[in-house]
């Protein structure tokens, strides 16, 4: 097991170096620099421009900047945002929980609705239920997120007044964040109605962000179920006279869920992309929008360290999953 762990850890080193290289050079390849962007139409004199670039260390050769970047990271210094003058680490972790909270809610909703919808479509193959479910899924999959978000706001918030337009909790609730997860913090605050308010504010962004993964999960579940329902053991189960519901729930679904679970895992990337637009429409203070704004501002330290932090978190989660998998399945660690 130790050997397996060491092997997995060793694999992280080239991944880490690769990520730092991509993150560092990606933002520098783009034309324009942070000083110019901050000055806007007002411009900046060449002397002043050179002075600020020197202060920030951007006048050094690229290899030296990259070396300094790596050294700083190993010291735990992820740099300071040029746009806010605050440490990138602080900026990142003040936004990260909001994105995670929204993404978890979205994937939960997508799974909760997507799997039953796929099953329903599969067991009713060719019937109107199947066509309606898959038609809806196709519409959901093709939905432009930004437009969809605005449409829901206009209808549910503007017309029906059922949901709030934007934000994370009603403004009359005021407490200092503890975890950054509004649902948890609202419970910890002890303020009456805070948790319900936080849930209320999550509804529309969750629905919007869940739309595409829901469609994908529903389609994947349907196709996996159809494959499994044609297997011999399902036919045997039916031949034994088991009720149809039992055959579907116990015999078919458990096997069909394997590719579905993989699909749900793959939706994480889709969620990150969707989060950028969802966060914009609903003024959700997450990292998606922050990263895009930082690229536009050419905020080098934020982009290079923000990307690295996201990658480090994903790498850590993957490592934990791999280790757990190896513990559960001994064949993996002996391969």
């Amino acid at each position, binding site marked *: 097991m130790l050997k397996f762990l060491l092997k997995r850890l060793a694999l992280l080193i080239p991944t880490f170096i690769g990520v730092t290289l991509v993150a560092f050079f990606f933002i520098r390849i783009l034309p324009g620099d942070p000083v110019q962007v901050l000055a806007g139409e007002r411009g900046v004199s060449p002397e002043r421009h050179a002075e600020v670039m020197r202060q920030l260390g951007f006048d050094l050769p690229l290899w030296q900047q990259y070396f300094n970047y790596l050294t700083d990271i190993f010291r735990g210094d992820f740099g300071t945002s040029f746009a806010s003058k605050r440490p990138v680490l602080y900026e990142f972790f003040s936004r990260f929980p909001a994105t995670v909270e929204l993404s978890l809610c979205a994937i939960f909703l997508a799974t909760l609705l997507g799997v039953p919808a796929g099953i329903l479509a599969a067991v009713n193959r060719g019937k109107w239920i199947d066509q309606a479910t898959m038609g809806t899924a196709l519409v959901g999959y093709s939905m432009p997120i930004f437009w969809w978000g605005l449409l829901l706001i206009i209808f549910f918030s503007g017309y029906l007044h059922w949901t709030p*337009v934007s934000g994370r909790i009603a403004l009359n609730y005021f407490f200092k964040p503890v975890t950054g997860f509004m649902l948890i913090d609202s419970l910890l605050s002890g303020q009456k109605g805070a948790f319900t308010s936080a849930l209320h504010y999550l509804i529309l962004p969750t629905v919007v962000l869940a739309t595409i993964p829901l469609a994908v999960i529903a389609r994947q579940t349907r196709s996996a179920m159809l494959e499994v329902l044609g297997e011999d053991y399902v036919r045997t189960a039916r031949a034994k006279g088991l009720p149809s519901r039992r055959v579907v729930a116990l015999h078919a679904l458990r096997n069909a869920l394997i590719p579905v679970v993989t699909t749900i895992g793959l939706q994480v990337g889709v969620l990150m992309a969707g989060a950028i637009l969802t966060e914009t*429409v609903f003024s959700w203070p997450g990292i998606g929008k922050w990263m895009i704004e930082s690229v536009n501002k050419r905020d080098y330290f934020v982009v290079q360290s923000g990307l690295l932090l996201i990658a480090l978190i994903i790498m850590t989660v993957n490592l934990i999953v791999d280790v757990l998998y190896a513990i559960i399945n001994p064949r993996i660690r002996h391969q």
Partner: protein
Amino acid sequence: MKLMKTLLTAAALTALLGGSVYAKQLVYCSEGSPEGFDPALWSAGTTFDASSRAVYDRLVDFELGGSAIVPSLAESWDISEDGTQITFHLRKGVKWQTTDYFTPTREFNADDVLWSFNRQADAASPWATYVDGASYQYFDSTGFKAAFKSVEKVDDYTVKFTFNSADSTVFVNFPMDFLSIGSAEYAAQLEAAGNMAQFNTLPVGTGGWQYVDYQTDTVIRYKAHPDHWSGKENIDDLIFAITKEPAAAQEALKAGQCDVIPYPIPADVDALAQDPNLVVTQTPGENVGFIAYNTQQAPFDKKEVRQALNMAVNKQAILEGVYSGKAQLAINPLPASSWASDPAGTIGTYDPEAAKKMLADAGVTDLNLKLWWMPVARPYNPNGKRMGELLQADWSAIGVNVELYSADWPVYLEESSKVDRDGAVMIGWGADNADPDNFLGVLLSCAAVGSNNRAQWCNEEYDAKIAAAKATFDQAERAAIYFEAEKIFHEEAPWLLLAHSNQYLAHSKRVLNFKQDPLGFHRFDGVDVAE
């Protein structure tokens, strides 16, 4: 006894409930997050609204809803005869805000003024680099740094500024955000604690509201400064709910979740105005949108070519097609509301046939023009691409071959400033202050060639007029000089003048006494809400 207890409880409850009922709250759905809370470091209006306009005061200020300069922390001032010294007489009894993180031991005095200016002027001050990449951009870029010589304390309530030369454009900097007055005592405490960066995150000022809390990208909370020198503000709790998407902000306003929104979508303004619960206000924008030719490149170095191109453009069509009619066609390079705008200025003539002839007379045939269109919407130009297409059609009609070109905004800004830039660039400007030099000098002087002067136009006669106006303190005399400069501008035509875009703002009807600011700030001084 029991009755007495019940009555007392009832009285206490009434007082408690009464207190909460009368706490007035206003929610402003701001368009973005502040970069920080030290206004000297930043240049964005969003940041100024959240920092300097809410928390801080300045020696003098712009009048509410106007651009005239009125007393603030200084009750009066004298300008020396030679124009190189300004003495401010400071207000007494001004109290600093008391917050969770700072308890002042003294009132505002001259030491605070000296600290606020010297930290920006003195490169050796520890405050010059108190956060990574600190840059006092406005202090530097407005020319204040170059003009500033010293500030000295005459007594606790008198300060004297000395400048390197007589410059009538200097005084107008004093009400600007970057010259907000901070507490020297608070700064000293932070310095001693080795925690100077806090100055940019937890502000302390003398302004109408004191900072309570900021949750990143979500909400900023302030409460009224109870001891403000002009009296406590009507709004007890001022909340900035950050709502970056304008369409969402509009829905929030309609749903009653916001009381004020700053930038309604121009196309939706009429619909919002018809909502019985809302009020839409507008003010002529202190901005200008224009096309800058590169006057250093042939054949655009010939004024006849530039004049001909200007004559070929149907500005009325641009006003309707790009600005939806919500702008004023520009007659001069500065807003028509300015005292320095020559009333004799015109929008120019639209005559494609005359334009064609003028080009032929100038010996220019098969003219190619690369037109840079803005990839972003700005207050002075809501739709760069549409404007580019309209201009392309107009110029094509007189035989000019127009190539539309654009780039990512940071690149656009950088590349369009270069002296050897190919083509004409679509750009604009929003006023920093109400001084005419902020347009006529900043955008068209020889010193600005290669930076803000994107026409790369250097006319010695014009430049001499601008310099003469800066050295004159009499407004009427200055105006006369600027009128002459504008005549030269019209004759030389370094720009295609377009429009001054109106500024709109929408608020709920429960908001009372809100005055829209022509300089684009969002201030809540004197604002009230209906019970």
